[in-house]
């Protein structure tokens, strides 16, 4: 242990310190910029995806309209509207439920599926 500033210069301590701080700051500045730009990029991406989907949907609608018989609209009675609405809603709920279940199964993936089959079997024999 000999106190001396010579030690610092020999090891280029100042240089290391400056380089070090420069790189630490570069790193965190880049992360900061990355974080700051993410919401904007994601937003733009989502918009473009939405646009594309909208265009596709429009096309489909056109094709459907062309293919449909001439006076379909007038024939849609209230009962039919209600029925369609119900089906759509049921379908929607089914999808949500399926989605929910898929995620749940995923979480403890292997375990449930493997174990469940056994349990399913048990149920099936009891019914």
């Amino acid at each position, binding site marked *: 242990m000999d106190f001396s500033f010579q030690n610092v210069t020999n090891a280029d301590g100042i*240089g290391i310190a400056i380089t070090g701080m420069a790189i630490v700051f570069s790193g965190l500045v880049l992360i900061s910029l990355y974080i700051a730009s993410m919401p904007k990029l994601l937003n733009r991406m989502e918009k473009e995806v939405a646009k594309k989907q909208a265009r596709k949907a429009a096309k489909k609608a056109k094709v459907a309209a062309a293919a449909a018989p001439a006076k379909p609209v007038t024939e849609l009675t209230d009962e039919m509207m209600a029925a369609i609405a119900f089906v759509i809603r049921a379908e929607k709920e089914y999808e949500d439920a399926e989605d929910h279940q898929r995620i749940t199964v995923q979480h403890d993936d292997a375990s449930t599926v493997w174990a469940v089959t056994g349990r399913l079997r048990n149920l099936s024999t009891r019914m």
Partner: protein
Amino acid sequence: MDMLINFFQQSGFALLADNWGNVIMIVIGCVFIYLAIAKEYEPLLLLPIGFGAVVGNIPYIESMALGVYDDGSVLRYLYMGVTQGIYPPLIFLGIGAMTDFSTMLSNPKLVLLGAAAQMGIFLTLIGALFIGFTPGEAGAIGIIGGADGPTAIFLSAKLAPNLLGPIAIAAYSYMALVPVIQPPIMKLLTNKKERLIRMKPPRQVSKREKILFPIGTFLICAMLAPGALTLLGMLCFGNLLKESGVTERLANTARNALIDSVTIILGFCVGASTQAQTFLTPKSLFIFFLGAVSFAVATASGLIFAKVMNLFLKDKINPLLGAAGVSAVPDSARVVQHVGQKEDPNNFLLMHAMAPNVAGVIGSAIAAGILWSVLVPG
């Protein structure tokens, strides 16, 4: 200032310019992560492998020991569990502790489908020999068709450690892609009438049968192919812990903390072993090609064998179940269920498909044991 410039010259940004291979592999890693999260293809495997591939392909100067191939690095120590084949048996222990074999016990005929699907392994072996791989390498490549990651890693570590990375990646990739690979083959080789066949509900299995199953199965397999002793020993041990009813706390740890810890580290290390410098070679391309063939052959063999069995059986088997014989547990069983339900939404094949599915695991472990004993160098 020199130091700063020098440092940036040693940084990954500069080194990447000379290493486009690494860039490609990082992109592939990100694709794996995307598939895991957005498509939910085997996320427990693809996500660790994908991130591992990103980590393993960051370039660095040689004097630092950072990668799985550098002596003394942390990743090297963790990777030793892969190269020494320690992780796969621990994963099998956990799988044993979480698998309910009752569907298989209640329908022993379906076990044979798990044998037929191993045809993929041996045909691929011949194909790999034909292409010019050494016998050891060919055996390790063949096992990709077993559709079982841990088995593939275990055998590669013994027979072809130099190809461990590509073989493991191929095995896990195709396992994740089972929902993409299998359905067309299944539709091609079966007709609508066959796909509509319903199976009888399986019978109730007693606790005693469940307890005796792992012991007897282990004895049969290990006597026949001692090379399968480690993998099947752990699988059956885990299952016995589960079914005995007196060691529930051990089974619980085996199927949770233990298997999860090993899965995290195994996946990450396998991913990190895909350094472009050793990974992006023509050999790897051939391995991926052979792996795809292997999966297709395995699926087809299972389907065809089921149809052959139907010639002799009174209670017909739905031949789709044959496709579940490749293992890739539990994905290929799910695929069978989906394909079956497309024809008849009220036909529930999942639980029946689990029988050939787990039989396929045992089948490929036996195959690995055989290949090891026949091809082991020295």
